[in-house]
């Protein structure tokens, strides 16, 4: 299986990363090399094998539904690219 240029552009769009034509071509050939490597594991018969999502098969810990975080808005907004009146600014989304 080989990827084509449209695949690269599609995933770049999904990942919200701007790529120009030259970059897309360079990435395409490297991605195909990597998928060549990945192919080895696709032929393995894994019927009956449970997917392993955690190294120790522990289940997610639950905590009490209580407020644990303190208000740190000022500290967090101090490092934001653009804020005003305690709000994060982005380009206009709704006309």
């Amino acid at each position, binding site marked *: 299986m080989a*990827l084509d240029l449209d*695949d*690269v552009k*599609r*995933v*770049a769009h*999904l*990942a*919200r*990363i*701007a*790529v120009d034509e030259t970059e897309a071509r360079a*990435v395409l050939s*490297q*991605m195909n*090399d*990597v*998928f*060549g*490597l*990945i*192919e*080895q*594991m*696709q032929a*393995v018969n*894994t019927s009956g*094998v*449970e*997917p*392993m*999502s*955690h*190294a*120790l098969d*522990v289940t*997610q*810990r639950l*905590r009490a539904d209580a407020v644990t975080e303190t208000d*740190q808005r000022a*500290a*967090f907004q*101090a*490092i*934001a*690219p*653009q804020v005003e009146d305690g709000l*994060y600014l*982005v*380009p*206009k*989304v709704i006309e």
Partner: protein
Amino acid sequence: MHNATLKSLSAELAAKRVSSVELTRIFLNRINKLNDKLNCFITLDEDASLKQAKAADRARAAGRAQPLTGLPIAQKDIFCAKGWLTTCGSKMLSNFVSPYDAHVVERLNAAGAVILGKTNMDEFAMGSSSETSYYGPVRNPWDPDTVPGGSSGGSAAAVAARLAPAATGTDTGGSIRQPAALTGICGLKPTYGLVSRYGMIAFASSLDQGGPMARTAEDLGLLMNAMAGFDARDSTSLEREPEDYTRELAKPVKGLRIGLPKEFFGAGAAAGVMKAVDAAIAQLRGLGCETVDVSLPNMKLAVPVYYVLAPAEASSNLARYDGVRYGYRAPDYSDLTDLYRKSRAQGFGAEVKRRILIGTYVLSHGYYDAYYIQAQRVRRLVARDFTEAFKRCDVILGPTSPGTAFRLGEKMNDPVQMYLNDIYTIPANLAGLPGMSIPCGFDEKGLPVGLQVIGNYFSEARMLGFAHQYQLATDWHQRTPPGVE
């Protein structure tokens, strides 16, 4: 003084032969002299370091000293430290002054350690050479034309060049062990879940694990005592009784069963590497260890599995960098989507973008089962091989890396060649097992070779004891790079 271990520096501090301020200055002076050449550190803050050192001296004077009190330790720039620039080697975070401490940083601070600086690394820990950093490549003190390995290459090179007595690292596919091997130091990736990932910038969350890097196994144990511990803020942190990781240092290795997987001893590694590893095994037999042949039949699938799982998890973790709340924002954009696209295109380097694209692809509609779920199933097969092997042995040995330090630029344009550096280290990450690298010799070019020790779950104390006994019988860990007296 800069050649001393943490253990002996701790004794010097306790005997009042040196203060933490003096010790911190010694290392800061060495950094100021040598960092231009090696590029180990991204950020230094002498005032902040010396402030911590003064506090450590006061704590000691007040009789409140702990084993690490006053010891300067370098932090990999993946760990958030309050008030410190924390870049993760990326332009994306080149303006990110962390508003909080990682759990590891909190614990080391509470133990009285001094943050010596933030070390250079592959961008977002994605790399095996420390060349993908936005801050330029790190150089290996054994030969400045070669790489120190990665991604914790700044930490490794700093410890090897005696710019720091110890450092923190993180290991997703070998990022503690491989640079430790390539620079002739020791590094331990603990059992997954022992060291909290809170404040440790995420790459592939089911694999990432923080750990210590130092010059002796004994020092790794001292650091583990401070770094490991339950933290409710990391959902994968394990709730276990605290343990003393130095408790088995004095235990003889006689009768210990060493598993030698045939897959580690095939034609994969360089002759100079295998010669040193074989010599170490022979010496360990001389110390009374037994060797057992074992097999990890699915090991060849570990790298392919890793390059599905790690990019998939990375593409999800790195979605947070959008140029809105913190980090880099592109100067010009037309609308919100354009702001995202340009901030991410300009803020991430080539390797990070490549992995995000691979990860996005394998998680995308129609491919999820064929790639991601299949990789998780094969991951279990790789883990089961270890379960079988550990029925017959106490530790598994082999090379850490197939080669010694390679030249800068040599593998930068061939991702697959770069990825194969981690062929021996990735299996332990997939299984969640502890893995360690300790120096075991040099190749024909005079470059260090690392011996990898993989233990069963939670057997860190046993592994460190084993490594310590080997280090009592050898002096590879005491060798210094050329020019380091």
